[in-house]
């Protein structure tokens, strides 16, 4: 680990990270609340009616941020698991284990809000097209991580086995992203990430979506900070700094 910069070493130290996470959580939470409320106001009130989908298109302001977050959380989880597997950093596994339940919830939310959107627009809650199916696989990857982790008693082994699953599951991420281009899908193509020419051009439509998405990401950071502290306690309970922090020396 010699080549890792010093601040990484410090960050990977559980007591240091624990205190840092504790200090940052209220601020992250505050920023997330402001952004999400602003995004919701922009999406529900300011954004003009879509010429094809009417007011029904406003579901985009919760659907797309959830779907993006479901992928971002997976990337964070798989990267943390890889770091944990390669350098055997316990904190990295604590991060990966904290991502799984949050990621599963947001994948569920992306699928559910998608179904609610699909019903009036496509006439069906669910279709087995490539985008929907690969997102469903993402949900199973999260649930698989949780189940595998829970099935192994010894935490170090559980971290490694579930971590390996998370790393292998990364192949699904580009499949989800490109599914709307590789296959003929009912799901519409990307609205924002098409390089150079996003199909949402009206800033009054686009900006609330970006604010909401950033809000979701900051929200995730806040929830992650709380969960990682729990995971760190589960792994470090025998250390002295833990009893010092918990105040029962």
């Amino acid at each position: 680990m010699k080549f890792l910069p010093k601040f990484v070493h410090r960050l990977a130290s559980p007591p240091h990270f624990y205190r840092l996470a504790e200090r940052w959580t209220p601020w992250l939470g505050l920023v997330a609340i402001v952004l999400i409320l602003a995004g919701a106001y922009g999406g529900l009130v300011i954004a003009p009616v879509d010429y094809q989908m009417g007011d029904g298109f406003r579901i985009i302001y919760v659907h797309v941020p959830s779907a993006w977050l479901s992928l971002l959380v997976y990337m964070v989880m798989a990267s943390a698991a890889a770091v944990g597997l390669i350098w055997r950093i316990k904190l990295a596994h604590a991060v990966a284990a904290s991502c799984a339940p949050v990621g599963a919830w947001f994948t569920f939310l992306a699928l559910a809000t998608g179904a609610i959107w699909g019903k009036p627009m496509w006439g069906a809650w669910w279709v087995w097209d490539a985008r929907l199916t690969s997102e469903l696989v993402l949900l199973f990857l999260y649930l698989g991580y949780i189940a595998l982790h829970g099935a192994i008693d010894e935490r170090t082994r559980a971290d490694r086995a579930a971590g390996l699953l998370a790393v292998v599951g990364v192949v699904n991420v580009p499949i989800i992203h490109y599914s709307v281009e590789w296959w003929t899908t009912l799901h519409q193509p990307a609205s924002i990430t098409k390089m150079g020419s996003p199909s949402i051009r009206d800033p009054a439509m686009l900006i609330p979506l970006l604010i909401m998405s950033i809000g979701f990401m900051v929200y995730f950071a806040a929830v992650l900070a709380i969960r990682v502290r729990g995971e760190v306690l589960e792994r470090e309970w025998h250390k002295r700094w833990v009893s010092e922090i918990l105040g029962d020396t």
Partner: protein
Amino acid sequence: MQEFLNMGGYAGYVWGAFGLTTVVLLLNVVLARRYHRQAAIRARRRHGSLS
């Protein structure tokens, strides 16, 4: 106001999606806090049984 709530006839879908999102956002905060609290209780108990 009535027009806003009606969402051009999509009220059930739009408010349903936003409502569900609110529930999931709040729930994840509650679950994370509960997990941390219970981990702290477990850590204390295990620590107590060591000494």
